[in-house]
């Protein structure tokens, strides 16, 4: 199909883009990498009257300062895959992005665009939640920071105000004794995830038992979702090795699966999704633990 007609303007800066967005109101839409928006236009699922192209608004590269990995919003998926700072400080994200789209999508798609799109099956969104990331946002009233845990509201809907734009994604750099894992089930490589799990496990100072665990899930609700920390609290002070470790991981995964009510669609029933949550979460917990123990050794 062919998109409905729209006007186009290239913004030279985020300030200009915010002004254009404020002027354009409901009918204006930001164009970043375009790998989700353009298909929606071509399928006529969206029909904005004005596209504000921000691809020329910023040329910064990923950087690290004050314990934060700063990813400019226009950082392409390919850069996330290959950039030394990303691989070193957020290997979870570098690994998860392998599962996003295809070569062409990764050449154009951006980290900020992906979060702003708020797809409930997003790999990048689940990594941002699992790592406790924030987004830096610019609007008519200036800049603010929003935790990703407060960003996603529902299907393709964020907590951003109408004229706000994500300018940066800020991810706490990986710490020693911290391990990660990403698993997903897809119908075909490069397709949308049926269920995806991103897990972070941090060991205590003696690196012998678990201090903290975070699990984020995609494909289980109207937005990517952080598993209730209460359901993971039982893992604190434990190891995840051997058969007792397997049992502990499976019990935690079962509690998380039981807490969710994923809906059914043409690809999978709710029960199947819940089953995937249990299997993939247990797998991810064990792997993240092994990573953490390996990193600490």
């Amino acid at each position: 199909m062919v998109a409905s007609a729209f006007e186009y303007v290239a913004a030279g800066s985020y300030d200009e883009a915010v002004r254009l967005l404020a002027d354009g109101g409901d009918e204006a839409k930001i164009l970043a990498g375009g790998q989700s928006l353009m298909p929606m236009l071509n399928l006529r699922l969206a029909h904005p009257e004005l596209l504000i192209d921000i691809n020329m608004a910023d040329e910064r590269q990923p950087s690290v300062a004050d314990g934060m990995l700063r990813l400019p919003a226009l950082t392409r998926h390919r850069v996330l895959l290959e950039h030394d700072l990303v691989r070193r400080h957020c290997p979870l994200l570098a690994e998860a992005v392998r599962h996003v789209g295809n070569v062409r999508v990764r050449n154009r798609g951006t980290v900020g665009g992906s979060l702003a799109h708020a797809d409930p099956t997003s790999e990048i969104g689940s990594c941002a939640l699992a790592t406790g990331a924030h987004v830096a946002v610019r609007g008519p009233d200036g800049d603010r920071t929003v935790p990703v845990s407060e960003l996603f509201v529902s299907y393709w809907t964020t907590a951003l105000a109408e004229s706000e734009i994500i300018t940066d994604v800020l991810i706490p750099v990986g710490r020693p004794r911290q391990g990660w894992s990403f698993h997903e089930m897809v119908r075909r490589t490069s397709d949308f995830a049926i269920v995806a799990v991103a897990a972070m496990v941090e060991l205590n100072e003696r690196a012998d038992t678990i201090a903290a665990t975070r699990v984020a899930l995609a494909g289980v609700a109207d937005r990517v979702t952080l598993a209730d920390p209460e359901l993971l609290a039982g893992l604190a002070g434990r190891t995840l090795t051997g058969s007792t470790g397997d049992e502990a991981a499976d019990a935690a995964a079962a509690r998380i699966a039981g807490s969710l009510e994923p809906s059914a669609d043409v690809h999978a029933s709710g029960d199947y999704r819940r089953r995937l949550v249990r299997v993939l979460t247990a797998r991810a917990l064990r792997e993240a633990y092994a990573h953490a123990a390996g990193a600490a050794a």
Partner: protein
Amino acid sequence: MTLRQIVLSVNDRDHEVWVLPSDTLLDVLHDELGMADVRYGCGEGVCGTCTVLLDGEPVNGCLTLALQAAGRQVTTLRGLMGPGEAMHPLQECFLRRGASQCGFCTPGMVLTALDLVRRRGQPSREEIRYALVGNLCRCTGYTKILDAVEEYAGQAAADAPGEVPS
């Protein structure tokens, strides 16, 4: 909606074209400039038949606006060919291996595979499979395509050890 005039640089030749803001690069290359090697398949970025190189990187022609390509270098399959439309060595490998049947997917396959070999030198079969996951072929069953890319990568590495194939 207003037409705008832009200069598109395609295969080292400049084209002055009038485009609508909503025209995709695919629309303009195929419909306006008559380039039959850039093809409409899905319009969603998943099939790979509209692949072109934008400043050397494979992108979806159907998900890029023509206006966004102004001032940049666009390369289609034709741009890889030598004088007198001499085939690129990777195309020769496709021909020799029977990697092209109806041919609809071939330009996208060749451009994507060439980008992979330029980046990775001699990729493993698994790496080739991963790089081509977004290029759909309904004829060959992919095996012959993998054979062709593997042959080309080996050949390019043997011809110019340590150099990046063009």
